[in-house]
Structures are given as structure tokens and as C-alpha cells.
């Protein structure tokens, strides 16, 4: 970049605006994707690869600044560095430590991990970043990796369309949101001290679990959400609260599947399939039926447009815009406290099957996704698949492993082979 060129800056997109406002001293919304290579990672090479990748990644090469009315991203001129992994990943990002970057790249043994502040991008953007980083790393190791299957070519400059705000492009000025979310059942448990994040990783064969899902005539996501709701339902029954609230699982949706864009920024929404035990007992088949049809019903272009339009319109309102940032933060915080995570019991995000050029896949064992601690919800789940390995990662901030136990033993009872990895010290 030339010396006298003005610093490039970006407005935050609609989804990104939420996170800086609700972050606290102890907590930022961080999620992580990691890749496990077949060989031990060379940190010096990875560091070089990171230098090459960051310049290409557009929005990832920014730092967060506060303006008078909104936060904004500004091009960061510092160098990003590779950090050591920890037993409790995804703790809040310290910009001082990361040189202002809103992500962390970590290396441990054979694993390369990328932890991202959710304001910058969603799972899709983070996966693209990680894929490009690994491709660059393998190139430095002397392999020839083509820029296909979502791997970006780092010899090119970043493209304008990759930093586009998809929400602004596709929102509908007329559509109005049709329904309100109700309060949801919350998992109880003993809070872990400090910033412990309990991880239980379940590894299952994609082929086997797809065969089981097929028996019920549902997709893999339907099936996993169904099992998750079933697990939460069992816990609610054992817990027997006085007032029975519905069990709702938030399922993030990649909007790129519905709207044409090449953006690397946040462009996802969510739907919350739910069961309400006040209406009677549910069998597993009934839960699957509800989930399957709920997802088909809500995952339409019209409903998703309506959902994002409501948020974009709120952001576009002149009253919101002229409000100074610190007042906005207080209000967004209050809204999040009332209408945010209290409306869901847990989250299950499915990044799907990670696609990669064959030349790259030959060096990779598997792909992991992980959600950092949420602000109020205690247990969340992230799923992704690579080759025949499905990785289901539960992260929790409580001592009890009830959700994980119910979930995985349910799969074991269905005849599936589950291998666990954990950082829990039991």
C-alpha cells in the first residue's frame, strides 16, 4: 500500500453490528474452525503463509474502531502472528495481543486452528480463510495446490464483491416480520470457574450416520437437530421445572445458498425449530417430523428475506442512526438480554461437508468446528464433515455433561460408533 493512500475502511454489516455492542470485558463472540493435518505443523512456514493470506482476505485484515455513531472496520497494517493453542480455546480476543486483528491463528501438533470474532465473518468466511491459509502453507511446503473448491488465490488482490454487505443488497423494504420468538427452556448446571470451556468432540462415520438418517427419511441436519432436541427434552423431563418452556434449538443458515453473492462477511440467518412439552409427550419420530417440516417451512427465500429485512430496517431507521454509539450499545445490550439467547435453549450449527481440492485433501485428516462460550446459553454444538469423518463438537461452560451424554449415548443406542475426544479433566 502506498504511503499517502487513505486507509481503507468498511461499515459493519447488519449481523456484525450486534457483536461489538454485546461484547463484555470477559466475553466476545468467538467461534473456531480447525484442520488436523497428517503431519506436524511447521510454525515458521505457517507464519509465512499467514502473511500471504491476510492480505488477500479483505475484511479479515481489518481492525475494529469506534466512530461517533457506529463501529467500523479499518485496514490493519500490523503483522498477524501464529499463536500457541490452549486447553480452553475461544476466550475473548484481546486486540493488543493479536495486533488488532479480530482473529487468532493457532498451531498445536498437527492442528491449525482459526478463531474468529463473529463480527468479522460467519462460518463460511472463516472456512474459506482457513482453507486458503492451509493451501498457502502447503504451497510453501512445495506442493502444487490449485485455487478451486473455495480456495482463494493469494496472488490476486482482494475483490470488491467479497466485502459486499449481502443484507443490504437483498433486504426487502416492504416485508415485515411475521412472528415473534417466545422464551425457551434453559439448561441448568454448575458454572465452571474462570474461562474454562469444556469440549467434547464426537467423531462418527458420515456414511453410517447418513444411513441412519435415511431410515427416518430426513436429512443429516434434521437428524442431528432432532437428536439434540431429544437430548434436551430428556433433560427437561428429568429436571421437571414448574413452568415448562418450549425447547428451541437455533440452527444458523448460510444465506449464500439462497441469495447469490460472493461475500466473505457475515451473511447468515437462523431458524429455531422447537417442541413444546406442554402439548404432550413427544416420541423421537415426532420430534424429527417437527424439525424436518419446520426447516422446510421456514427455509424459504421469502421468510428469510422477511427476517433480515426487519433487522436491516431497524438499523436504517433515522432514530437509530443519529443515536450516539454508547447509547446504542446500552440499548442493543438490553434488547439482547431480553430477546437474545433467552429465546433459545441451544445452538446447533452445521458447516456441512468441507469441500477441498484433491491435492489438498491428501494432506488433511479432518476438519473441526467449535462454538465459543455463549453469553447466556451454557451448551452449544457445532458440526462439520470432511471425507467420511463427521465431527460433532459440544462446548459447555458448566461442569455437568448431561447434554453431551444424552446426545452421544442416544447415537450409540442407534448402533453408531462414536469416538470421543475431550479436554474435560475427569
Amino acid at each position, binding site marked *: 500500500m502506498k504511503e499517502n493512500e487513505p486507509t481503507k475502511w468498511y461499515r459493519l454489516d447488519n449481523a456484525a453490528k450486534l457483536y461489538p455492542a454485546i461484547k463484555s470485558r470477559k466475553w466476545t463472540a468467538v467461534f473456531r474452525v480447525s484442520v488436523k493435518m497428517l503431519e506436524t505443523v511447521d510454525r515458521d512456514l505457517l507464519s509465512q503463509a499467514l502473511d500471504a493470506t491476510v492480505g488477500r482476505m479483505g475484511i479479515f485484515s481489518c481492525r475494529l474502531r469506534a466512530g461517533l455513531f457506529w463501529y467500523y472496520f479499518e485496514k490493519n497494517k500490523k503483522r498477524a502472528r501464529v499463536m500457541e493453542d490452549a486447553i480452553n480455546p475461544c476466550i475473548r480476543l484481546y486486540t493488543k495481543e493479536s495486533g488488532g486483528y479480530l482473529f487468532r491463528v493457532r498451531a498445536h501438533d498437527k492442528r491449525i486452528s482459526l478463531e474468529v470474532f463473529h463480527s468479522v465473518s460467519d462460518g463460511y468466511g472463516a472456512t474459506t480463510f482457513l482453507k486458503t491459509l492451509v493451501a498457502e502453507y502447503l504451497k510453501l511446503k512445495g506442493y502444487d495446490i490449485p485455487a478451486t473448491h473455495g480456495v482463494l488465490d493469494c496472488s490476486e488482490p482482494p475483490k470488491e464483491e467479497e466485502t459486499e454487505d449481502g443484507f443490504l443488497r437483498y433486504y426487502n423494504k416492504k416485508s415485515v416480520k411475521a412472528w415473534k420468538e417466545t422464551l425457551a427452556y434453559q439448561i441448568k448446571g454448575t458454572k465452571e470457574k474462570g*474461562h474454562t470451556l469444556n469440549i467434547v468432540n464426537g467423531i462418527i462415520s458420515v456414511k453410517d450416520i447418513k444411513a441412519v438418517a435415511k431410515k427416518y427419511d430426513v436429512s443429516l441436519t434434521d437428524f442431528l437437530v432432532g437428536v439434540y432436541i431429544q437430548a434436551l427434552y430428556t433433560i427437561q423431563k428429568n429436571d421437571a421445572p414448574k413452568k415448562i418452556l418450549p425447547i428451541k434449538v437455533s440452527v444458523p443458515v448460510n444465506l449464500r445458498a439462497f441469495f447469490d453473492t460472493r461475500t466473505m462477511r457475515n451473511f447468515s440467518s437462523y431458524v429455531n425449530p422447537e417442541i413444546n412439552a406442554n402439548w404432550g409427550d413427544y416420541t423421537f419420530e415426532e420430534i424429527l417430523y417437527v424439525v424436518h417440516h419446520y426447516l422446510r417451512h421456514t427455509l424459504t427465500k421469502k421468510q428469510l428475506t422477511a427476517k433480515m429485512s426487519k433487522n436491516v430496517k431497524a438499523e436504517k431507521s433515522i432514530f437509530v442512526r443519529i443515536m450516539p454509539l454508547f447509547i446504542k450499545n446500552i440499548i442493543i445490550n438490553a434488547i439482547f438480554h431480553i430477546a437474545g439467547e433467552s429465546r433459545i435453549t441451544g445452538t446447533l450449527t452445521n458447516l456441512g461437508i468441507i469441500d477441498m481440492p484433491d491435492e489438498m485433501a491428501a494432506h488433511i485428516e479432518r476438519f473441526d468446528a467449535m462454538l465459543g462460550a455463549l453469553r447466556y446459553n451454557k451448551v452449544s454444538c457445532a458440526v462439520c464433515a470432511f471425507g467420511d469423518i463427521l465431527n460433532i463438537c459440544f462446548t459447555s461452560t458448566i461442569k455437568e455433561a448431561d447434554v453431551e451424554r444424552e446426545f452421544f449415548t442416544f447415537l450409540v443406542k442407534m448402533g453408531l460408533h462414536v469416538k470421543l475426544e475431550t479436554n474435560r479433566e475427569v
Partner: protein
Amino acid sequence: MSYCVNCGVELERTQKKCPLCGVKVINPMEKEAPEDKKTFPETRDELKKTERAFWFKFISIICVVPIATCVLLNLLYDSRLTWSVFVIAGVFMLWAFSTSPFYFRKFRYITMMSVDLAAVLTGLFVIESMVAGKGWFLSIALPVAVYCFVSLGIVIYLTRIKILKGLRVTSALVLSITLLIFMLEILIDLYTASAISLFWSWFVIAPCLSIVLLLFILEKNQRVREAFARRLHF
């Protein structure tokens, strides 16, 4: 390869207990402890501590400024400390109020209130000794301050253990104010005339007691309470 006998899941070789149910993993075929690498490193990320020390120092320095200025001016014109002692006492109380939350690692309302009480008493004592005291510190200030501290402490405690709820918290507070007024007149009478004759405190006590009574009735009567809620909800 080890399995949990209870859950049926396969576990890592380094795992000694099942992470799901806590059952011990015993593999009779593997006599020696396996030396596999762990999935997650042992190192732990810690968040930086709150900058308590910074805020403590920051507030302290800010408090030093008015004290220094006043002492300097006082010395310059009177060549001894006279009126600046009042400023010192006042700023000292303010300093104690504002720094105590940063001084203690854990926020306990009882510690905070004790510190505040001590600060108020010290400040008042200094002021009394400056104005060639007539004993008002011992006979009025001390009992009133201690009473406020104790009664507020009791209300907070009862609210926290959920004996006092809703409107009863307000009535308890009003009741303690009533008692304070009552006590105040007795103390002042004793200090000035050495004979107790209750007069003006009735004008405060009567409305206060009726408020307490009203709140008590409201608390008991659900229909009235709902009628209020219906008309005043927003």
C-alpha cells in the same frame, strides 16, 4: 482402544474416565499407562485481570489534587491549616466511597458498607475536633451513622435471603426512616435540652407510618394490587 462400559463410546487412550458419565476406564489388556499425545495442550489461556490497581491509583491521584490546592492556599494565607481540614475530611470520605469497590477483590456489600461507615465516622470526627467540638459527634453523629448502617444492612440482608420481597422492601425502608426520625429528635433533645419532648418528629412519623400501613394493605390485597397493575402497566 478403550470404551466406556456405561456409555458405549470409544475414548482416547489417554482418557482415564469417561467425560460423559465419569465412570473409570479400565482396560485389562493395557497394563502400562499409554503415552499418547493429548488432543488439547496443557497450557491455559487466562484473561487479564481487571485493572483494579489502576483505577484505585487513578481516583486517589484525582482526590489528591483538590486537597493539595486547598492546603497550599490555606497555608499561604493563614500559615496554618484551618478551613482546608474540612475539604480534606470531605474529599477523604469521597475517596473512600469511590475506591473501596476497586480495593477489594470481591464485592461484598457488608465490607463496602463498613468501609463507608468508617470513612463517614472518621470524617465527622475530624470535623468535630476542628470546630472545637461540643460533643455532638458522640451524642448524635455516631449513633445516627451506626443506625443507618445497621438498618440498611438488615434490609439488604433480609431482601437477599428473600424474606423481604416486592412492596415489603419499600415498607421496611420507610419504617427504618420513621425510626431514624424518632431517634433523631430524641438525640437532639438530649443534646440541647437534656429532656425528651417529642414534637416535630410526629409530623414525619405520622405520614411515614400511614405509608407503611398502606403498602402493607396493598401487599396483602391481591385484587387492589392487580387493579393498580392493570391501570398503571406500560
